[in-house]
C-alpha cells in the first residue's frame, strides 16, 4: 500500500491542528522565521527551484508566476489566495483550511515576503462557513502572537459562484462586481487587483510553501516524480469508493493504488466502470486505464489531466449519458454568460443530452452534440466552456456504444442508473420569480 506523505497536512495526522500553540509545537512558523532571514528574491528562487506547480488545476509553475510580477510600478503588489474551491469532486482546500489553517497563513506570509507585498486577500468560497471561522480564529491568534510582520490579511467571502475560482473572475468579485472573467492580457501579474500587480495562488499551493522553505527546494523537489511533478498532492477521493476522503500522497502513485489500496475499492461488489481523475472538467478514463501514474506527464499520455486532484470513482450502475447531462447541467448553471459559445453551447448540450437520454434523439443529434462541443472548445475568454465540452466529448469517445444504444433502443439501464432523475439546480431555478427593483 502506498504510504501517505505529509507535507501540506503535516502534523495533522491525528486530527485538526487548529491551535497556534499546537501548530508551533509541530514546527510551525519556523519556516517563516527562516524565510525572513532570506532576501525576498531568494524566497522566490526557492519556490522556483522546488518545481512547485499550481494545485488549483492549471499546474503552472508557481515560482515562474511570481517572477512575472511587474516591478517598480509605483503601485502596491497584492497576494490573493484562491480559496474558492468549487470544482465538482474537489474538497481538499476545505480540509487544508480546517485542519492546518496556520500553515495557510504561514504560506501567505512567506510568499508576501518573497514578492514584497503587505496586503493579502484570501477569497474563500461563501459556502465554507466553518472553514471561514477556523481561518478567522487562526488569523486572530497569529495577529496576537505578533507574527504578521506588518502584513494585513483580509478574509473575503464569496457568495456562491463556481466561476469565481477563475482568477480574473475572482478579482472582479473581490472588487465588488459580478464575477465575470476579464480579457487577458493584461495578466494579473501586471494589472490584477485594483489594476495593480497581483499574484493569485490556490490554497494547497500556498500551504506547500512553508515546507519548501523548511526542507529547501532541492529536498522538496525529490518528492514525487521530478522534474515535472515534484511534491505531494492532497487527492480528493469520492463517488463509488469505500473510503472517500482526502489523502496526501506523493505524485506518482497509481490510480489503482489510490482507489483500491487507499480507498478500499468499490462498495457493494460492483464493477469499476470509469474514473474522472481531476475534477469534473477533465476527460474520463476507463476501468482498464487505472494503472496510470498520477503525475502530469503520465496523465497527459493517458489523454486526461490531474486537474485539481479530485478523483471521482464511477461504478457500473452509472449511465454515461446521464453523467454527461449532469456535468453539462452544472456548467450551464455556472456559465457567467459573457461568451456566447459557453452561454448558449452549454444549454444546447443539456438539451441534446436530455433528448438522447429520453430516447428521442437520432444520429444527427449526437453529431450535433460533438459539433457544439467543438464550437465551444478554445473559443471563450476562460476555460469554463472547455470544462463542459472536454468531459462530455470524452464520454462519447470512450463510451460510444452506450450512446449509440440510447439512439437505437433507449437507455440500457432501464431506469436503474445511479444517476436516474437527479434534480439539478438548473431545473429547480426555472420558476424563480423576478425580484422587484427598488423604487
Amino acid at each position, binding site marked *: 500500500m502506498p504510504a501517505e506523505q505529509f507535507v501540506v497536512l503535516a502534523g495533522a495526522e491525528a486530527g485538526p491542528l487548529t491551535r497556534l500553540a499546537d501548530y508551533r509545537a509541530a514546527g510551525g512558523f519556523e519556516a517563516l522565521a527562516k524565510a525572513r532571514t532570506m532576501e525576498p528574491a531568494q524566497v522566490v528562487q526557492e519556490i522556483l527551484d522546488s518545481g512547485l506547480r499550481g494545485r488549483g488545476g492549471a499546474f503552472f509553475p508557481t515560482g515562474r508566476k511570481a517572477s512575472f510580477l511587474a516591478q517598480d510600478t509605483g503601485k502596491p503588489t497584492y497576494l490573493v489566495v484562491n480559496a474558492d474551491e*468549487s470544482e465538482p469532486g474537489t474538497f481538499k482546500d476545505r480540509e487544508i483550511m480546517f485542519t492546518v489553517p496556520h500553515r495557510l497563513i504561514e504560506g501567505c506570509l512567506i510568499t508576501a515576503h518573497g514578492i514584497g507585498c503587505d496586503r493579502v486577500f484570501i477569497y474563500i468560497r461563501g459556502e465554507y462557513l466553518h472553514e471561514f471561522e477556523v481561518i478567522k480564529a487562526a488569523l486572530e491568534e497569529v495577529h496576537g502572537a505578533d507574527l504578521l510582520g506588518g502584513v494585513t490579511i483580509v478574509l473575503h467571502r464569496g457568495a456562491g459562484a463556481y466561476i469565481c475560482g477563475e482568477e480574473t473572475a475572482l478579482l472582479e468579485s473581490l472588487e465588488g462586481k459580478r464575477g465575470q472573467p476579464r480579457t487577458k492580457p493584461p495578466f494579473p501579474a501586471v494589472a490584477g487587483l485594483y489594476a495593480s500587480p497581483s499574484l493569485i495562488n490556490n490554497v494547497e499551493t500556498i500551504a506547500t510553501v512553508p515546507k519548501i522553505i523548511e526542507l529547501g527546494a532541492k529536498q522538496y523537489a525529490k518528492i514525487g516524480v521530478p522534474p515535472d511533478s515534484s511534491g505531494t498532492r492532497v487527492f480528493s477521493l469520492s463517488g463509488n469508493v469505500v473510503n*472517500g476522503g482526502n489523502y496526501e500522497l506523493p505524485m506518482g502513485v497509481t490510480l489503482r493504488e489510490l482507489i483500491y489500496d487507499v480507498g478500499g475499492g468499490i462498495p457493494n461488489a460492483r464493477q469499476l466502470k470509469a474514473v474522472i481523475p481531476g475534477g469534473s472538467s477533465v476527460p474520463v478514463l476507463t476501468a482498464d486505464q487505472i494503472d496510470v501514474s498520477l503525475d502530469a506527464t503520465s496523465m497527459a499520455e493517458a489523454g486526461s489531466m490531474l486537474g485539481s486532484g479530485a478523483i471521482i470513482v464511477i461504478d457500473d450502475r452509472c449511465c454515461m449519458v446521464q453523467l454527461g447531462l449532469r456535468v453539462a447541467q452544472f456548467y450551464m448553471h455556472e456559465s457567467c454568460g459573457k461568451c456566447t459559445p459557453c452561454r448558449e453551447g452549454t444549454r444546447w448540450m443539456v438539451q441534446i443530452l436530455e433528448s438522447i437520454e429520453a430516447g428521442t434523439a437520432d444520429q444527427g443529434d449526437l453529431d450535433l452534440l460533438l459539433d457544439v462541443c467543438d464550437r465551444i472548445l478554445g473559443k471563450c475568454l476562460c476555460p469554463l466552456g472547455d470544462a463542459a465540452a472536454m468531459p462530455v466529448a470524452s464520454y462519447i469517445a470512450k463510451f460510444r456504444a452506450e450512446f449509440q444504444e440510447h439512439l437505437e433502443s433507449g437507455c440500457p439501464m432501464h431506469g436503474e442508473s445511479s444517476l436516474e432523475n437527479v434534480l439539478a439546480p438548473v431545473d429547480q431555478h426555472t420558476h424563480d420569480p423576478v*425580484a422587484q427593483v427598488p423604487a
Partner: protein
Amino acid sequence: MNSLHDEIQAVRALYPVSRSATLPALRLAQERYGWLSPEAFRDVAEALDETPAYCMAVASFYDMYHLKPVGRHLVEVCTNISCALVGAQQVLEAFESELGVRAGETTEDGEVTLRTVECAGGCGWGTVVAVNHRYRERLSAGDVPAIVQELRGEASNAG
C-alpha cells in the same frame, strides 16, 4: 446591536476601494432582513455610495443571495456527481416528502426552504446537506426525518 450602516462601514474600511465591500455588505443586509428586499438594497447602496440597481446587478449573479423571501431555515442538498452517485436524489426526495414541498419551495408556514445546490465540497463524504449553512455529511434518506424533526422542534420552540 450596531446599525447595518455602521457594520457596512466597518467592512468597507478593510478595502482600499469601497466597492470591494459590496459582497460582504449584501451578506450583512441579508442577515438583517432575511432576504435582499428592496429596503435591503437601498440600505447597502446608501452605505456604499452605489445605486440600488448596481447592488441588485451584483447580487443576482451569486447563488447565496436571496432575491425573494426564504424560510427561517434553509436546507440545501448537493446533487452534483459525487453526491448523486451515492444517493443524493433519494435524500432530496426524502426531504420533499417529509417537508411536503418540492425543491425550490418553502413550507407553507414559512419555516423551511428546500433547494438543491451544486457541489458543496464534501464529495468524499456524500450525501452533503447544508442545514442553515452547517454541513451534515454522509447522509442517507434514513437520516432525513430526524433532521426535519429537529428543524420543526426549533420552529415550535421559537413560536
